[in-house]
């Protein structure tokens, strides 16, 4: 069985989009903004580890 790079890539992008939406929804609430920002930092690493390879 091969690794499902396409599947992983699409999940990473979905998490990223979701974190961005969460950040907008939680604007003015530090805990939401900062935690959403932290999620985006981790999706950045995932993109560099997985998505960039797939593209």
């Amino acid at each position, binding site marked *: *069985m*091969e*690794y499902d*790079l396409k599947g992983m890539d699409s999940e990473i992008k979905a998490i990223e989009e979701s974190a961005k939406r969460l950040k907008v929804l939680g604007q003015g609430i530090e805990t939401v903004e900062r935690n959403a*920002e*932290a999620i*985006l*930092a*981790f999706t*950045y*690493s995932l993109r*560099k*580890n*997985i998505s*960039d*390879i797939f593209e």
Partner: protein
Amino acid sequence: MEGGVTVEDTKKTRKYWNPIIETLPRERLAEIELKRFREVLRWAKGNSPFYKRKLHGIEPEDIRTLEDVAKVPVTEKDELRAAQEGKEPYLYGDLLAVSPERLSVFHQTSGTTGKPVYIPDTYESWQWVVEVWCYILYAAGFRAQDRVFIPFAYNVYIAFWQGHYAAEKLGCEVVPGGALDTQGRIQKMKEVKATALMNTPTYGLHMAEVAKEMGIDPRRDLSIKRMISSGEPTPEPTRLRLEELWGAEVYDHIGGTEPGGWGGMCSERKGMHVIEPHYLFEMVDLETMSKPIPPGTKGVAVVTPLCRRCIPLIRFNLKDMMMVMDEPCRCGRTSMRVDQIGGRVDDLRKIRGVFFTPAVVEEVIRGKFPQVVEFETHLTQEEVMPVLTLRVEFDPSIGESQWKELRGRIREQLKLRSNLTFEIEVVKPGGLPRYTLKSSRFKDLTKK
């Protein structure tokens, strides 16, 4: 995948932190690195005033192949200092490529070669730096089951912070041993049954010496199975000596404050894998410091972190003398492997017409004279002649009757290896300084 490594193998053995990247064909790694190099070039030109000036006239589109990368000028450490000195925003000046309110981490260089350079990170870039260190630790066999002891107060220096956060991310249990003396640290390691250690090679040797004085044999009485070296180079004889003293696998890694950790040893412990395609690694010749050189030739390392947007570095001259190893690694990783040889360009000097680097002394002493617990080289001037004196401290079990013979053998081996004659001076036990972070075993006393 290359090297006969199958997906099923990697799932079963969990040998790699990222089995996809670490076994990519070299051609694919090169494609990704080229693409990322263009991206980081574009980012740096667009966001860092320093690079906007430095890279004027160079466009990312001009870099069509990895050979074209050599068209881009190398960045020197002195340029980083100048770009920060007296410039706004305070501390980071023209190097910064993000707005200051996004910064969350501060580190600085040790200042060994001049005024320290300040290197910040955003939360994003810091997580990337830590992620790269996960590759390094995982290749060195660190796993979630390990209890990792770090015998340092990390202060403003990056190495052990990276190691700490990466070990946490791997799932290890991290025990910070900062606010203790060496004896206290050894006791703590024993008490918690630490299985892995992050250390400077110098301090690893010193800890073993102190443990012995305490009646503790690290091989027998402690549980350390693996150690990763940081903070300073670990010549092969020193690495082997540490393995012998600790009864543990000792792994070297390479990195710095400016680029982050960019390479490390795998289970083969033969050279260090560059963490590709997170870094672009190049070798340039010693004479011009600009012409690319082929594998198997000694040269100077130049590295570009490809994903750190906060403070981009393009073709950073590490001033480390290295050689690219040509043959594929048995571990199955397809990344380039390098061997750190001969120390730093800054340390290279001509003495009596012969090129000399202090790294040679360490190789000889650690490789052939386990009787020596500490040493220090002094360069002085007598009339017009430069004089090299090696001050050695023997293990207390070595009687004075053996000193003369040992001195003779050390002198002979140093002559063979460096083509230079050394004066050998024996210092009484405890007479030489012990180091924890960066050692300073070479003193140029000819400088006023």
